[in-house]
């Protein structure tokens, strides 16, 4: 589904990604771990097409297409979803209004008919209930005055509604207590299917207890330093990132 080849990217002329290679197939869940500043969030931002992240070399192929040639919203409509590390507030725009506009944009791209207001409401309510969010929450401004945990659950809510092909979760687990983590993980697991792929960017292996990955990659200094199975994450937890670097050196 996703093939990243020799990816180099800079932020404000500072090289962050330095030759990253990664391949993810449909049905797989990959975890990307690494120390602060290793380029994890940069990778997520580059995949989504955020301004200010410049790809200087390499390619990204997504479902057989050149992902980098697509505008942000085109990637979204083609099924690339980014759950933000720091979800953005949009005052005055209700969550409901936003979700509906977004869902319509994505569905109409897929050639699916728009949901009626009633159908949409039903779906939105059911999905919020699944994430243990009060339906009142749909009427509030997008992320406006939400707690950290609510913001993260709101991201998952959007993900479940939009049903993406490729979901990228950028440190969605940070700042969540155990109960909230469980709810978020249930949401992610609900999305797992043979047609979809999920990338979880995380700093801690804790999330991986709840969403078990098929592969774990360690990112350091802009490159994948090592890949392995679930056990790699546990090893990291025990030994920290230092031994990998020493190893590599």
């Amino acid at each position, binding site marked *: 589904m996703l093939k990243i080849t020799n990816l180099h990217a800079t932020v404000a002329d500072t090289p962050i990604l330095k030759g990253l290679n990664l391949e993810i197939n449909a049905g797989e869940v990959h975890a990307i771990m690494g120390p602060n500043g290793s380029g994890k969030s940069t990778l997520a931002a580059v995949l*989504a*097409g*955020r*301004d200010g992240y410049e790809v200087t070399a390499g390619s990204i192929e997504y479902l057989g297409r050149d992902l980098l040639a697509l*505008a*942000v*919203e085109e*990637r*979204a*409509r083609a099924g690339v*979803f*980014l759950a*933000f590390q720091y*979800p*953005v*507030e*949009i*005052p*005055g*725009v209700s969550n409901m*209004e*936003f979700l509906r*506009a*977004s869902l319509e*944009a*994505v569905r109409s*791209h897929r050639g699916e008919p728009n949901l009626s207001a009633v159908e949409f409401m039903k779906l939105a309510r059911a999905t919020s209930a699944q994430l243990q969010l009060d339906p009142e929450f749909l009427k509030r*401004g*997008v992320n406006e005055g939400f707690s950290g945990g609510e913001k993260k659950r709101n991201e998952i809510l*959007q993900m479940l509604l*939009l049903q993406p092909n490729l979901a990228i979760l950028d440190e969605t687990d940070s700042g969540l207590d155990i109960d909230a983590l469980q709810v978020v993980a249930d949401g992610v697991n609900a999305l797992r299917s043979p047609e979809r792929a999920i990338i979880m960017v995380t700093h801690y292996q804790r999330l991986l207890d709840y969403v078990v990955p098929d592969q774990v990659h360690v990112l350091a200094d802009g490159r994948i330093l090592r890949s392995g199975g679930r056990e790699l994450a546990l090893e990291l937890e025990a030994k920290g990132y230092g031994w990998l670097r020493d190893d590599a050196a």
Partner: protein
Amino acid sequence: MSKNLGQLDRMVHGAYEAGWTTDIESDTLAPGLNEDTVRFISARKQEPEWLLQWRLKAFRHWQTMVHPEWAHVHYPPIDYQSISYYSAPRRPGEGPQSLDEVDPELLRTYEKLGIPLHERAALAGVAVDAVFDSVSVVTTFKDKLAEAGVIFCPISEAVREHPELIRKYLGSVVPFRDNFFAGLNSAVFSDGSFVYVPKGVRCPMELSTYFRINARNTGQFERTLIVADEGSHVSYLEGCTAPQRDENQLHAAVVELIALKGAEIKYSTVQNWYPGDAEGRGGIYNFVTKRGIAHENAKISWTQVETGSAITWKYPSVILQGDNAVGEFYSVALTRGMQQADTGTKMVHVGRNTRSTIVSKGISAMRAENSYRGLVHIGAGAENARNHTQCDSLLIGDRCGAHTFPYIESRNPSATVEHEATTSKVGDDQLFLCRQRGLDPEKAVSMIVNGFCKQVFRELPMEFAVEAGKLLEVSLEGAVG
């Protein structure tokens, strides 16, 4: 429902490039302004002597006044002698004969706004009679108002039918000495609406100029007077979301509201006069004086959505005269292209326990200039007066300007005034979030801007609010990028 068909005759499809285009016909006064002009207007309207004398006094005073220079707007000097101050109602046969003759660009805008076909014709100034095929609706409407005792008619008619009310209230809130444009209006006002709601009556429906037949050709110097007697309630809607064309470049209207003890007046405006072309040529100069006086326990609420006109100069105000009076001002002003707006309000607290709320949202795009100017004055006797002002500006692009000029004056130690102003732009991260969820940039911007304005939109009557949202969306097209 809320399209202002009453003004249809004014909306001709005119070539603004030519500037002051006034057809000089037998029934139209030649350009120029002197006492004879004032006498002519008064005579043509068959006005009583006292009103003529009032106009003349206003005119004489106006001649001593100087054109205001303090607003943050720039335009070439206006030659008041080059304007025609009277033209008789338009007859069928003038103007475009069918929609085929109308500027396709204008029609596309109507389509985007979802304006019904027959209304499009009216708005574009096509001379058709068919727009009033809903005469029965109007009749029902009039019957209902009459039953409630509400008077709603052209002010010229009220001068004849209800002289005691006009004499008592005309100029009582906005005296002709008030300012240059109010002085001019008082001398030469063409026509406008008059509303009287009797004691204790809740007006059975929202009053819109839409229903006011005979409102044709109210002209560029419109005069509106609304009197809500004790304990009454009225909601008045003015304007239209569709871009309105007018052959007259200068508009100097006066609106006076009187809310007697315990009365409530809600006045909503959507203003979308022709803003001029991309280079700022043509476009309406909208210099309006709107003010209300709220007596004891009365409430006056102004809500405005201003998207049109080349220049907007207006400060709908409330004099909180009586104890416990309430004043509100909710405003969205959007400027784009070369538009300039200097708009805000004055809340003058005189009575005890008076309260006022100001919410102003200014959006500036392209090369436009948008200023909020507001006064909160707390008089020495205004014990426990309260004001809260929230004044936010949104800039779209780096060639526009957004300004805030609040004046806060207090003479009472028990008063509380809170003023906050912020400036922001449509955030890159907000845009990114919307686009990452599949929205195109224009849709994203209009959604964010609508969110920014929500506090004001929710004060509008329902159908106006929906239209206002749409209006912003259409107005923002091409402003982003």
